[in-house]
Every structure is written in structure tokens, then in C-alpha cells.
């Protein structure tokens, strides 16, 4: 069986790769493209560690086939910072110590960016529901939520 050829855009760059049908987008990002920031936690869409943004929508890259990426626009954790300048959510996560082991952090950052892109001024409740699909077993979430709300405030210029 021949492999599928995929042309897509990842973090603003045109990218081409070959994949087997059963490879997920997460498999392709990590194994074919060496973009290992997205993490494999559960492989069943429950933990959110593999979160990416596809055509402006937050999805689990473990629940999407790599071949479905054809023609799509994908944002991963690797595209969040601009060179050495961290995205506000990254900066606030550092300042608020919103991570411990760090395994869930790339997914949380991508999910938080997707939240603030769409809802620049979320309530705490909205932020908690939005991030309910991102599991973190270390932090207890309070620092995470505080960091996300503070990043939103900074992005609004407050």
C-alpha cells in the first residue's frame, strides 16, 4: 500500500510529508516532521496534551488522521513564540508558575491561545470550561487559570 502524500501549512510554512492512513496528525507531527512539542498523553482525546489549532479550531491531533491535514492550516505549540519573544500565555505561565512536570503545558498553551483568539475577555468560568479537555495532574489548575486570564488582560492592553 502506497503512502499518502500530504501538502499542508504548519505554523505559516508550507509543509509536505508522506504518511500511512492510520497515522494520526500527532504521529506525523512528531515522527515525520520532528515537531515534538505536541505530546501524546492518552491517544483517545481525553487529555488534550496533543492540542493543535486546525483552520482556527482547537482539536486533538491524536483524533485526526494526518492525511486529513491536506490543504489545512495548522498551528502547533512550536508556532506560538515569535523567535525569542514568547506569546503572552507562555510568559504568564512562567510568571505564575502554572506548570510543574510540563507534559500538559504545550496542549494547555495552545488551548489557551485558541480561547483568547476567539474570546479575548473570558470569564473564569468560561476559561475553566474551555480548558476542561486539558488534563493536568500536577498544578490543580488554579495557577493555570490565573495565567490564562492574566494573558488575556495583557493582550487586551489592560
Amino acid at each position, binding site marked *: 500500500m502506497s503512502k499518502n502524500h500530504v501538502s499542508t501549512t504548519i505554523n505559516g510554512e508550507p509543509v509536505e510529508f508522506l504518511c*500511512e492512513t492510520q497515522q494520526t496528525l500527532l504521529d506525523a507531527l512528531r515522527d515525520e516532521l520532528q515537531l515534538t512539542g505536541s505530546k501524546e498523553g492518552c491517544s483517545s482525546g481525553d487529555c488534550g496534551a496533543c492540542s493543535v489549532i486546525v483552520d482556527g479550531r482547537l482539536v486533538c491531533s491524536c483524533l*485526526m488522521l494526518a*492525511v486529513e491535514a491536506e490543504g489545512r492550516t495548522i498551528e502547533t505549540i512550536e508556532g506560538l513564540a515569535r523567535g525569542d519573544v514568547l506569546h503572552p500565555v507562555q510568559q504568564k505561565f512562567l510568571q505564575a508558575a502554572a506548570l510543574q512536570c510540563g507534559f500538559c503545558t504545550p496542549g494547555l498553551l495552545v488551548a489557551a491561545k485558541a480561547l483568547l483568539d476567539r474570546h479575548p475577555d473570558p470569564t473564569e468560568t468560561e476559561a475553566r470550561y474551555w480548558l476542561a479537555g486539558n488534563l493536568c495532574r500536577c498544578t490543580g489548575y488554579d495557577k493555570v487559570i490565573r495565567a490564562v486570564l492574566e494573558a488575556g488582560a495583557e493582550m487586551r492592553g489592560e
Partner: protein
Amino acid sequence: MSTLSYTSPTTVEAAVSALAGANGGAKVLSGGTDLLVQLRSGRSRPEMFVDVKRIPGLIGVREENGGFVIGAATPCVLIGEHRALQQAWPGVVEAARLIGSTQVQGRATLAGNLCNASPAADSVPAMIAARATCTVAGPSGRREAPVEAIATGPGRTSLARGELLIEFRLPKRPPRSADAYLRFIPRTEMDIAVVGAAVNLTLDPSGTCTEARVVLGAVAPTAVLVPDGAAALVGRRLDSDTLSRLDAAARRACVPITDKRGTIEFRTQVAGVLARRAATIACTRAGER
């Protein structure tokens, strides 16, 4: 060596012929939020995925003749963002929005929720209560079917080889109509219904219920329509006596199992409570119109 192939047709006819031609080993791929988990666990061993998301019209919500048409591959997030749909069918929209996380909402579809045929599917009771129909395309053309005709048991549907859902239709509503869906889960988010209850009703100007549909989820092998529950409501105002009759009818309709999520006794009792509460919410919403 893998033998799994992939195709993303751009017409319904091409999707039907791919599905019909694959010796029964082809699966429709829309959101993939159940299918890819089943693929990885080995529960499903398809030969081909037919990705239907590139077929024009399969993604999107449009108004038609006072009702709504929802493309089969429309992700739940788009359903939740459609204001007119939310206004007309708040119960259907709240059920669709309960499925999974933000990430899952970005992919999961009503057709997938229906055809995965879990007894606990959240959107299915709400769609049945709404008298939703679906258009099924297959080798012998297209047919309309009520949503309740699709799932036949856990993981099983009435769809024949080569058939797929292409869209759902929600009818035009009379004035003072509304619906509601509630589910019980042991936490506030990210879980599977222990019991679900949908109520869709219409009131007359005095507040008497003139039409109703009551549907329960997760208390039988498929979602169950409860005609006795509707009969308990029609011709009455939703006072405590009426709601008690609804509660009893809902409990009588339950044929649940005991599993890690709940016992037969618990599910039966909760079904009555949720039916009551969903009816009360639907009644309040209808009265506000």
C-alpha cells in the same frame, strides 16, 4: 503492513460508491472522535476510510422553509455558534454542546454521535424529541428517515452497506414551542451520560401543553421515545401532578443495565427526575416566546 486506505470524495455519489464497493470494510469518517479511538484499540478494523468532509453541503447549518438543515459532518462547535438554531432549538443545541471537550467539539458531529450508536449519545434523545429526520444516501438513491430509525442497538445501525447520512432536518416550529435536554454525570464536564432526558413541547396561550415528545437516553439499548410521558403532558398545565405523572411514565419506560456508571435502580429514578426537570425548562422557555 497496513491495508487501510483513505479517500475523500467530493460528491455524495462518489462516497456511496466507495462505501458500497469496499466489501463492507469501509467506514465513513466525519469527526473521527469515536472512530479513531476504535481504530487504535482494535475494536474497529476497517479497510477504508471515506472522509466525507470535502463534500459540499456536508458541513454547515442553513435555514429552509422555517426549519433548519444541518450537514451531517458539521462539527458541534458550529452548531453551538448558530444563533438562529440556538434560538429555535435550544435543547438540540445544548445536547450537541455537551459532547466532549472544546477539542472534541471542533470535530464531533451529529451523524457520528448517531451512527456510533452508543445508548448514551447526548444529541440523539434531543434530535428524536425534536422530530428530526435525516437524509440517507445509498446505492439506490436517497431516502428520508426519522432519527429514531437509525440506531438499532449498541454499536449497530439500520444503515445498509453503501449508505451514509448526508443531512438532518429540524422542522418549523409552532409558536410557544421549546425543547430542553439534561443529562446526569457524576462531574460537571467531560463524561458520558448515566441518564439523558429530552423534552420538546408546545403550549397554547393559556399555558396548557398541546404537543409533547419525551425521549430518554442511556436507559435502554437505544434512545427511547416515551409516548406515555408525552400523554402525561398533553392537555395539561405543567403542575406538580402533571410532572409526577411524567416522572412515573419515564420510569416505566426504562430498561437499563447496571454498570460502573450506575445501577438499574439509580438510572430509573434519575430518568424520572430528569424528565421532570427537562419538561420544566422546556415549558419555561416556551412560555417566554
